[in-house]
């Protein structure tokens, strides 16, 4: 991990979506999909973003790319606020940041040849001549490990893993510095998933990419990330270096998540911590700490006050009244 300048800074970002109330009616309620998230992604690092469905992790990824407009808050890319950019400036900035989607079937236009799919970003940003663009496409296909003749074929001719390689080549075409990988390997078989994870790893090192790796699979996130952030109901509840999160988790939700992951070792069958109840509705999140109704440690204060995300020793941040971050000792400076 590098401790370079932050490339992406998210400051108290909120996003709410209206629910109910028909086509022209007024919204009857709001879903707080992202409810005050702040985080930093440093140059060259991979930040893993984990949480269960509906926790807001994909929304957060899209807010960072400004594919969605935040309701409040600020996103800085390389020190500049994305929200303050003009349409033209934003378009230029878009070259710097790309996304790889989960579904390698649904995210590629079935009527376009691979060369056009991969080269589309180049054409949109008017990069190079037609011939140069085609040369770049061939280079990209080689980079992601696809045969050269792939350029003239259609997406349906490829398997899931190969399609994900096409999606990655498309994202890399405009030479971005930052990539959001949103469940990029979730739909793939184990053996193919390993190929794509290795590819992302190699590309990151080769090209100096910064990565926001969004996934629900804790094993995959541990493998890929330098730092990890855990989301629950629109908020980050814990964030820190990978070893800290996996070896020394503090938030009860993080601990429950980790204990729920089946360990591929039959000698380590364990007693799991089982959560009671379902994820509460983000339309009416519980007061105080959103996790308190499912938490075995909840105190009165948890039902009343939202715990702030506070950073402690070793850059380990926790939002919990009962298990707060360990304090920075004098020795840590």
């Amino acid at each position, binding site marked *: 991990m590098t401790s370079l300048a932050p490339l992406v800074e998210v400051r108290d970002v909120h996003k709410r979506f209206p629910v109910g109330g028909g086509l022209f009616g007024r919204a009857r309620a709001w879903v707080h999909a992202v409810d005050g998230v702040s985080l930093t992604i440093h140059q060259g690092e991979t930040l893993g973003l984990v949480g269960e469905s509906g926790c807001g992790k994909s929304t957060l990824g899209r807010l960072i790319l400004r594919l969605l407009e935040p309701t409040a808050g600020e996103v800085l890319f390389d020190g500049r606020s994305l929200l303050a950019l003009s349409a033209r400036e934003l378009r230029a900035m878009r070259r710097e940041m790309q996304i790889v989607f989960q579904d390698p079937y649904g995210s590629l236009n079935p009527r376009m040849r691979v060369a056009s799919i991969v080269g589309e970003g180049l054409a949109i940003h008017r990069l190079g001549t037609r011939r140069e663009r085609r040369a770049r496409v061939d280079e990209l296909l080689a980079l992601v490990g696809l045969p050269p003749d792939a350029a003239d074929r259609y997406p349906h001719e490829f398997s899931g*893993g190969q399609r994900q390689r096409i999606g990655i080549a498309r994202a890399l075409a405009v030479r971005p510095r930052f990539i959001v990988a949103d469940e990029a390997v979730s739909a793939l078989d184990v053996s193919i998933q390993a190929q794509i994870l290795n590819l992302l790893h190699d590309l990151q090192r080769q090209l100096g990419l910064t990565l926001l790796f969004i996934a629900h699979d804790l094993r995959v996130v*541990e493998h890929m990330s330098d730092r990890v952030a855990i989301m629950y109901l629109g908020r980050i509840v814990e964030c820190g270096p990978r070893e800290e999160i996996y070896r020394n988790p503090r938030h009860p939700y993080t601990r429950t998540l980790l204990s*729920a992951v089946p360990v591929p070792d039959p*000698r380590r069958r364990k007693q799991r911590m089982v959560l009671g109840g379902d994820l509460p509705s983000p339309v009416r999140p519980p007061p105080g700490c959103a996790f308190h109704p499912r938490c075995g440690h909840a105190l009165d204060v948890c039902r009343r006050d939202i715990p702030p995300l506070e950073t402690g020793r070793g850059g380990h941040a926790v939002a919990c009244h009962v298990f707060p971050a360990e304090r920075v000792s004098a020795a840590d400076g």
Partner: protein
Amino acid sequence: MTAVPIAPAPASSLLEVRDLRTFFELESGVVRAVDGVSFALDRGRVLGLVGESGCGKTMTALSLMRLVPRPGRIVGGQVWLEGRDLLALPEREMRAVRGEGMAMIFQEPMTSLNPVFTVGSQIAEAIRLHRRVSRRAAWARAVELLDEVGMPDPVRRAREYPHRLSGGMCQRVMIAIAISCEPHVLIADEPTTALDVTIQAEILDLLRTLRERHGMALLLITHDLGVVAEQADEVAIMYAGRIVEHASVLEIFERPLHPYTQALLRSMPGVGSERRDRLETIPGQVPDLLRLPSGCHFRDRCPKAISRCAEEDPALEEKAARHTAACIRV
């Protein structure tokens, strides 16, 4: 030659599958989705059937239930359940077997339930299909079952429609339907794949509790080796329509013999293990069943393949005590 059956199972075997073959005759050729699968399952035991997409694990399950979709067809083999060959039964008798002898739950609980009926009525309907009981008694039993599968507030939940329930709750309803007639074998096809990890843990715990309470045998179909390690007594690894290795769960994880099993285990990132920068991968793609290589179907992706692998169809043979593998290199 297809894989030979394992030695005849002991008389105590609840379910015994012998040389099961299910083919799809397509214009482009014959897809041998299940190509000579044999295994036995004893009362109260859990067999994990593991493999990647398209390896035939779901088709194996559907063949046991005789629910293979067209144009698929069971072309050979036997499925012995409590002394009867299910493949030889008339459809009417088979209908009784489904539910009472053997029941199945699926990966997508949301789409397996009928959206226009309440969950209680769907459970009650399943009961009345098999048992001559009044509507009222069936409803009461449905509420009882919802309680048994851990549904909070079962009386109220019975009157809800599936869309009002989360994925985890829908899977509980599916399990309630599956156990409503107390089957001796439960087939669970990727029962937790569509669920979040905390919900997955709850459903797996529920399956274990029910199994222990009712002495059901479980055929657990999954691609997740973590789930298998936690739940299964034995594991059968499938590749391209065949079982390539079968042993106890400890043997599979600690002494995997088949190169495919070995590669599968190494390609998986593990929690708490040392971070490896690179995962081992299996080169190539999940095979196209219409274009399988001759001899061993895995040989074009296998690091240990020799020329003889192209000529010989490896049989599933005992390579160690109670540990079979289909590989001439072992």
